[in-house]
Structures are given as C-alpha cells and as structure tokens.
C-alpha cells in the first residue's frame, strides 16, 4: 500500500471548512466587527496560497473561512434595504396595525388552513394615508372564510400564484408577548423571511390588478394538492386527516391541538413536519423504483431529483424541506459521478451552500436540529451499527483473519442479531479451505424474516434514536425544555405506521375516482392505522412517562450547553476509532479514552437533566414580574427567601358553541405553555411554591393548567371553585392528578412568606360553589417592609366599594389595576385611596375590548401614579428591599 501523501489532512475536508465557516458566523454575531472579518479573510487567504501543501496552509485556509463566515453575516445584516417593509415598520414610519393598502404579486400557492387560508405577497407598493411608497419584502396574509358569500367571492377572485393584487389591511410587525427569555414572534417571522403579517377582514378588500406570467403546470399541481386536502378532510376523521395532510402534503394548519401535543410529548413531532425523514424516505422509494426502469445513472439522478424538488415546491418549499432535498441531491450527485460519497463531506457541502445563502440560519433552531441530528447519525450511529454488524457477521477473510476482540457478551449479542448460519454454509462450501466457527448466539433464530429482521430493525432504530437524542439533548432543553426518553421507542412505532397511513389514504383517494365501494375499506383501514398509531403515545402520556420538562441554566453556567456536544463529539470519535479487528495493541489508549469520554458525557447529561442550582438564589428582596400575556393577567412574585407565587397564568378564551359541538381546536401554542412556562423555565424554575387562581376566566386560569402540567406545584389558592366551569375543571383535574394541596381562601386570611405578609382581601367569607364572577376575584395585598403591593384581579366597582367600606388599609405603592383597565373598575374613590406610585395594567397591545379605557388611565395618572401597560412595555419588573422600589421594563 502506498504511503498516504503528506497532503492528507482529513478525509472530510468540506466538513472542516463548513465547521470553520459556521464558527465564523457564530462568533461574528457576538464579537466581530466588519473590518476585523475582512482583515482576517484577506490576511489569511493570501498566505494560505503561499503555504499550499503544508500544515500551515491548511490552518490558514481554515482561518480564512472563519473570516469569510463573519463577512457573510455582516453582508446579510447590511442587506436589509431601506425600502423593505420590515425596515419601514421598524423605523416607525408606520405603526404596526395601522390600515394600509399593499400591492404585490402572489408568491406561491395559497396555503389552506382552518377557517381560511394564507397567501404570501411579494410587496411592491405600500400606500399609507394616501401616500404611495415603493417597497420590497414578503408579507403573509390570512384570509378568513366565515360565510358562503366570502367563499364565493374568493372563488371568483381566483388568487393564483403570480396574480397581482392590492389589499387593504392592517399590517403588523410588532411583537406581542415581550418577556425575557421568550422567543418573540418577530424573530420567528424573520426566520421564515416574512416582513409583516395581516388578517384581511373580507375578500371585498382585495382588488385584482393583473396577472403576471405564471407557470402553468405548477398551478395545476397546487390545485391537485388543494383538492387532496379537501378530500382528506371530508373522508377522514379530524385527527387522521390532520396527520395525513401534514405528513403527505405538508399542510400544518389542520392538525388539532390534542393530536399535535401527543406527538410533541412523545418526541415524534418531527414526523408531522416535512423534514429530512420524509425526503429521504420518498427519495429512497423513488430511487428504488427508477432503478427498475433504467440503468443509466444520469437518468436516475435527474428523475429522482426532479420528483423530489417538485414535491418540495408543492408542499410549500419550506426551508427545512429544501435543506433536506439539497442534501439528498448532493448525495446522489456523488453516486452519479461514481464517487463513493463520504456522508460527512456531503453534509459539509450542503452546510456551506446553505450558510453562504443565508448565514443567519445558523441561529435557527430548525437548522441546528437538522444538521446536528444528521451529523449524529452519520458520525456515531451508522459507524457503531456497522461495527456491530461486522462483529456479528465475522468470518475469516484476508482483512479480518482473527475473531474480533470485544467483551464476550457483546460478541454474543451481535451474533444473535446478525449471524446467519445459512449464508456462512453457502460461502464456506465455495472455499478451498474449510473451517469451523464457534458462534454462540443467545438463541438460535428459527426464522430470518420473521424473527431476525424485525429484531434487527428495532435494535438499530433504537440505537439511532437514542444517539440522536443524546446529541440533541442540549438543544432540546434550551429550545423545547423537554426531554423525551420514550421517543426512542415511539419513533419506531409511529414512523412506519405513519407511512402506511399516508400511503393507504392516498391510495384510497385515487381508487375513489374509480369506485367508491373499493375506496371505503381503504379509508376504514386508514382510520384503523391512525387509531393504532395514536395508541402508543397516548399510553405513554397517560402513565406520564413520555416526556420530562426541564428548565435551563442562566448566566455563565450556560456554557455547559456547549460543552455537552463537544463531549458527544469526543465520544463519537472514540467509537469511530474503535477497531475490534485491529491486530496491534492500541486498545489500552482507546479504552481509557472511551471510558473517560463516556463518563464525562454521562456526567454532563446528568447535570443538564437534573439541573441542580438552576433556580436563582434568594436575594432578600421582594420581586414582582408582571408578565406580558396579551389580554390576561399573570404575575410572578418572588419572595425574599426565594419562594415563588404565580398569580394567574394568562390564557386565550376558547370560543365554545355550547357543549354539543366539539369545535376544532387548531394547534396554536397555549399562552400558559409558550409564554408563562417558557418564562419560568428560562429563569431556571422547575417548581412553583404557590399558584393563585383569582377567578375562573379563561384569560387568567387557562395558563395555570399548563403551568400545573409543566411544573411541580407546592400549593394552589382559590377564591371560589365552581367545578362545573370548563377552565376550572381542567385545572382542578391537573392538580388532583398531581396531589397538589388546594386551599380556598377568603377575606381575612393572611400568612407570612419569607418576611413578607400576604393578606387576602376578597372574596368575602360567605363562599359557596356558586358562579365565580369578576367580583369574586381573589384580591391580594402583599407587604414587605414599608412597601405594599395590591393585586386587584378582575374586581369591578361593586367589590371595590365593598373594599372601601371595609376597614382594610388600601394605600399601596404598586397596584395591579383591576380588569385590565376597564371602566367597570377603578372607581374614583378607590383610586384616590390607593394613590400608588405605580399602576400596572396587564393588557395586550391592541385589545379587542378597548382596554385600557382612556378615562381609567387618566384617573390613575391624576392620582399621581405612573401608569404602565404590559402590552407596551413587555414584562414589568418591580423589586423592593422594603424601602426603595426599583422598576424595570423589558422594553425601556
């Protein structure tokens, strides 16, 4: 064998270049300036050419790619032109929500959703207050269909791609739910490339101006997709239709909330999104099929890839799907030019291409998850499985004359899975030599297809799943605050069943065109598979084992989330370097390295999972965070000794039409989950000592049910508890399931927590299980030192008068204004008695009820208070040490 040339640094050059490029982008976000990036680039690139062929040249090339990454990021940031819609709104030239008329070209197919559909517009002109501006950028519009007339109007308009329209609507770009640690909607839209969004009240507001040159065949494919979606919704039950539409057609808007959450808790939600899994599966099947038709590689390449890219376009051309298709194309390109593909190299190549086009993507969780999981599979899972196969399948060959050196139990395990006696007999009979092999599987396989292959499939699937989970652990915790041990098993169950379900549903629709009678059993089978599919995640969910919610560390300890993947990478390189068939004695080093990397990985994972000391230390101060939950209330009180009390959890009212019709609940994140729980996790809490449910209104109580699910609750305080109320029933059920102490309070009760005194001022003692109205809201008076906080709940003027009549002191320093600043509360006498320094109103930026009413705000200001609303300022944090008060807002 020729000596490897000294030029060989690595077998995967593109992977190293991609890593260096990515590192450059990541660092540039926090440290670089543009000049530094260019300097680095130039001063590293030129000498790299000089030193080509030497180690120094390679190192300099890596450094120059590092600089290139930084440069690319700067280019992307400065590439936001002033006439982008986004820039106009960010500069404040137009306020978010103001009525404008936007003219543009429809970009892509209409995306059907429940109750309407979405279209994306390539904006060209923006008219505000009669003034026309030339703009660019993409806006997304939601067009609700509430009546037959509206549906007829939309059909008449025929909003196909490349149609030019003018729409009058209120474009929005502001963020709601501005809380520290909670990802803002604006960021999510930016990642999708959308500058602003709007909901269009009526099709009459849309004016069709013209038709740009469109692409005929593409439009008909979109129509087929639309028709398929309609068919599925008619013929299948809601959960089944939602799943099939999501998996096969990429339509995310028909998933109902319950099914989607089942998938999330089982860690299998990625199956419902068109992602690498789908593309690989489809591409693989298409490839197998094409190989039957033609042997020419270039034909195969073109056919498979055009099919795949057409599919990607039709299902919406979302970025994750395009990434997967790009990776698949690169891999098959290697096949085309007869080069053995190093998967890591292909990964690196796709990473460089994608990051060069959109450097900001490196901060996108979807990008990180995709690449890390593929890297995990390629660098760790496949090599490991390959090695296990070799161990199990070993027979004497020129490369492997001796049996593998590995623990006895491992060898027996591999032989049980992989050893095939029949194959060995056939091969041995062809050799000139003869040999006897002493194989000791745990049990002899009676059937190759019946026993061995399913076993192998399950084992290999579990190994891949587990390794991916381990690699992704820090990401899953930081982004989703969720670890799903059950996903290792559930993925194997849900994946194949989902493929079967989608296939039979599609088959059913095609057969239905010929004969209804033949199609019916197919759809029945689809329903059966769907129910079977959901059975396993539901089972895990009911025994509460499926997933665990984990808070994150804050501060400098956060670096642990970077070290963990490094440890995983070290462990994987040990695995790749493990040579069970090696002849010489390199084992010692490998063993020690392997064991130490393994121990470090386990330790780090343990620390991340158990999160000791993640909660902030008690500061000796009383701290109140009024969260921005839009229309609703939620306040976190942190007592001087570190104990926490959550007063209400926000929520969105669910419009129920009576109790008969189960209305479709779309998969929109609950406020309690996406805002309140997220905020608490980012602070590092996994336990809340007290929760207070002031009254049974959805915008106060719904979030508490989610908080009860996600955190350990010490005790729950209620005013009245009408069990028949739907929101209250759900909260009650969750608390009962977890054996949380529930306590009904009434006026007169008081207790001490960490030096602060909590008094209950409302409701009055004659309680009962009657209807819990606003006037029965729990009113709390928390005093610490000489400072007093009043939390008024949703009480109205009657209760305020009662409070005034009672002998309690109502003077306060901070008041959470009752009922979101509605004029039903905050009567003059009350305001003048309380005379706080700060009046906090918890309300959304644009309230449909018009909260806060102007006269209420004026009343509080006239009494000398500084009035702040959470909708404007985001989270409002007030801290006191008993004497001084310190106020900070998320938005200054």
């Amino acid at each position: 064998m020729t000596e490897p040339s000294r030029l060989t640094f690595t077998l995967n050059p593109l992977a190293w270049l991609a890593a260096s490029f990515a590192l450059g982008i990541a660092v540039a976000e926090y440290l670089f300036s543009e000049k530094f990036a260019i300097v680095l680039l130039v001063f590293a690139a030129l000498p790299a050419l000089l030193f080509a062929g030497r180690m120094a040249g390679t190192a300099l090339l890596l450094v120059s790619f590092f600089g290139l990454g930084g440069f690319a990021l700067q280019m992307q940031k400065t590439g936001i032109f002033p006439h982008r819609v986004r820039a106009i709104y960010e500069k404040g030239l137009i306020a978010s929500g103001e009525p404008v008329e936007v003219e543009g070209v429809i970009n892509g197919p209409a995306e059907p959703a429940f109750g309407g559909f979405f279209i994306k517009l390539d904006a060209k002109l923006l008219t505000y207050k009669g003034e026309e501006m030339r703009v660019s950028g993409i806006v997304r519009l939601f067009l609700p269909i509430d009546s037959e007339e509206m549906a007829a109007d939309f059909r008449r308009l025929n909003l196909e791609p490349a149609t030019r329209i003018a729409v009058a609507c209120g474009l929005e770009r502001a963020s709601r739910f501005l809380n520290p640690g909670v990802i803002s909607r604006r960021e999510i839209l930016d990642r999708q490339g959308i500058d602003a969004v709007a909901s269009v009240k009526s099709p009459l507001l849309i004016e069709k101006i013209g038709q740009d040159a469109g692409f005929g065949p593409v439009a008909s494919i979109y129509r087929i997709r639309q028709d398929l979606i309609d068919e599925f919704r008619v013929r299948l039950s809601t959960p089944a239709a939602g799943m099939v539409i999501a998996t096969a057609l990429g339509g995310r808007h028909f998933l109902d909330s319950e099914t989607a959450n089942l998938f999330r808790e089982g860690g299998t939600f990625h199956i419902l999104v068109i992602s690498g899994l789908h593309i690989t599966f489809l591409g693989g099947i298409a490839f197998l099929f094409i190989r039957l038709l033609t042997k020419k590689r270039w034909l195969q390449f073109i056919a498979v890839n055009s099919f795949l890219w057409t599919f990607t376009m039709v299902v919406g051309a979302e970025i994750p799907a395009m990434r997967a298709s790009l990776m698949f194309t690169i891999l098959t390109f290697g096949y085309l030019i007869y080069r053995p593909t190093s998967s890591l190299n292909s990964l690196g190549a796709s990473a460089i291409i994608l990051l060069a086009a959109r450097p900001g993507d490196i901060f996108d969780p979807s990008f990180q998850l995709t690449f890390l999981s593929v890297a995990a599979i390629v660098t760790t899972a496949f090599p490991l499985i390959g090695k296990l196969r070799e161990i199990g399948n070993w027979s004497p060959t020129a490369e492997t004359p001796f049996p593998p050196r590995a623990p006895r139990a491992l060898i027996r395990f591999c032989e049980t899975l992989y050893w095939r006696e029949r194959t060995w007999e056939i091969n041995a009979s062809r050799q000139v030599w003869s040999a006897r092999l002493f194989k000791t599987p745990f049990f002899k396989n009676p059937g190759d297809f019946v026993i061995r292959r399913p076993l192998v499939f399950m084992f290999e699937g579990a190994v891949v799943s587990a390794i991916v989970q381990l690699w992704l652990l820090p990401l899953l915790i930081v982004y989703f605050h969720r670890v799903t041990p059950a996903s290792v098993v559930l993925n194997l169950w849900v994946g194949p069943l989902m493929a079967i379900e989608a296939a039979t549903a599609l088959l059913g629709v095609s057969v239905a065109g010929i004969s209804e009678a033949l199609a019916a059993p197919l759809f029945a089978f689809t329903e059966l598979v769907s129910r079977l599919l959901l059975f396993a995640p539901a089972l895990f969910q009911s025994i509460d084992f499926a997933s665990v919610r984990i808070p994150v560390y804050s501060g400098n300890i956060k670096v642990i989330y970077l070290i963990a993947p490094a440890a995983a990478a070290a462990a994987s390189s040990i695995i790749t370097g493990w040579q069970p068939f090696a002849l010489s004695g390199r084992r010692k080093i490998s063993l020690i390295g392997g064991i130490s990397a393994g121990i470090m990985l386990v330790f780090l994972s343990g620390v991340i999972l158990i999160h000791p000391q993640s909660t902030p230390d008690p500061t000796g101060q009383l701290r109140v965070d009024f969260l921005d939950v839009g229309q609703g209330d939620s306040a976190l009180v942190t007592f001087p000794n570190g104990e926490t009390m959550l007063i209400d959890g926000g929520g969105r009212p669910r419009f129920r039409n009576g109790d008969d019709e189960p209305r479709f609940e779309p998969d929109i994140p609950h406020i309690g989950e996406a805002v309140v729980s997220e905020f608490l996790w980012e602070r590092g809490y996994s336990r809340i000592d007290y929760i207070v449910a002031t009254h049974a209104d959805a915008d106060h109580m719904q979030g508490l049910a989610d908080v009860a699910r996600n955190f350990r609750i010490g005790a729950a305080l209620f005013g009245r508890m009408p069990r028949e109320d739907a929101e209250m029933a759900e909260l009650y059920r969750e608390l009962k399931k977890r054996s949380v102490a529930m306590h009904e309070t009434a006026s007169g009760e008081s207790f001490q927590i960490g030096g602060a005194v909590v008094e209950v001022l409302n409701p009055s003692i004659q309680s009962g299980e009657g209807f819990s109205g606003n006037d029965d809201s729990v009113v709390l008076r928390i005093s610490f030192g000489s400072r007093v906080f009043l939390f008024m709940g949703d009480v109205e003027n009657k209760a305020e008068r009662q409070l005034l009549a009672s002998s309690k002191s109502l003077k306060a320093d901070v008041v959470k204004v009752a009922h979101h600043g509605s004029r039903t509360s905050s009567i003059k006498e009350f305001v003048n008695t309380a005379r706080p320094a700060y009046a906090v109103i918890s309300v959304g930026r644009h309230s449909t009820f018009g909260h806060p009413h102007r006269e209420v705000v004026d009343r509080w200001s006239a009494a000398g208070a500084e009035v702040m609303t959470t909708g404007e300022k985001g989270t409002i944090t007030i801290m006191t040490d008993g004497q001084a008060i310190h106020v900070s807002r998320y938005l200054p």
Partner: protein
Amino acid sequence: MMRFCNYCKTRIYIVGPILPLAIIVAMLAGCQAPHSDYPPAAEQVIAASYALDINTATAVEFERLPSVGAILAERIIEFREKYGRFRRPEHLLMVQGIGDARFRRIRHLIKAE
C-alpha cells in the same frame, strides 16, 4: 437486486410508466371536487344615484344607513380624518366595527368619489 430476464424487462418498460400514470389519472379524477356551482360572473354592485358618498358624508348621514349607529358613525368620521379619503367603498371595511356581514348589507347604498 433481482435479475430480470429479457422478456420481463420488456414488461417492465411497458407496465412501469403506465402504472404510475394510471394512478395519477385516477387521482385527478378522484379529486374533481364538484366545481359546478361556481357563481355567475361578478355581480356589478351598481349603487343607486342616491348612494351616499362616504368621502363627504357627515356622521348624521352615516347613521341613516341600516346597521350603523352613532358610535360607528363617529368612528368612520375619525378614521377618515386620520387616514384620508376612502379610495373605494370597500375600504369602509377597515373601520373597526364594520365586518363583512354588515358591509354587505349597506354596500349598495354607498359610493366613493
């Protein structure tokens, strides 16, 4: 990989393209949602000559329209003062409180000059 005889290969070349084609045709046939009840060509909403010009009307005149009360009329005037004249009668929908249903009830009574 299975080895095909030459005879079988011919069969594959004929059956191969036909089968997926048949499936696609069947799917197209199956998905023909009944398009028959397309409404006729756009009805021209011809406002009568007594139609109210929403760009010059006063609050009192707005109140005369069915389904429009005092508060809504006030809001329309405020909107017009803040954002300028209405380019089309449909833009009246932008005022908070006027939804699709309400507008359809009054659309034949208004115009925008």
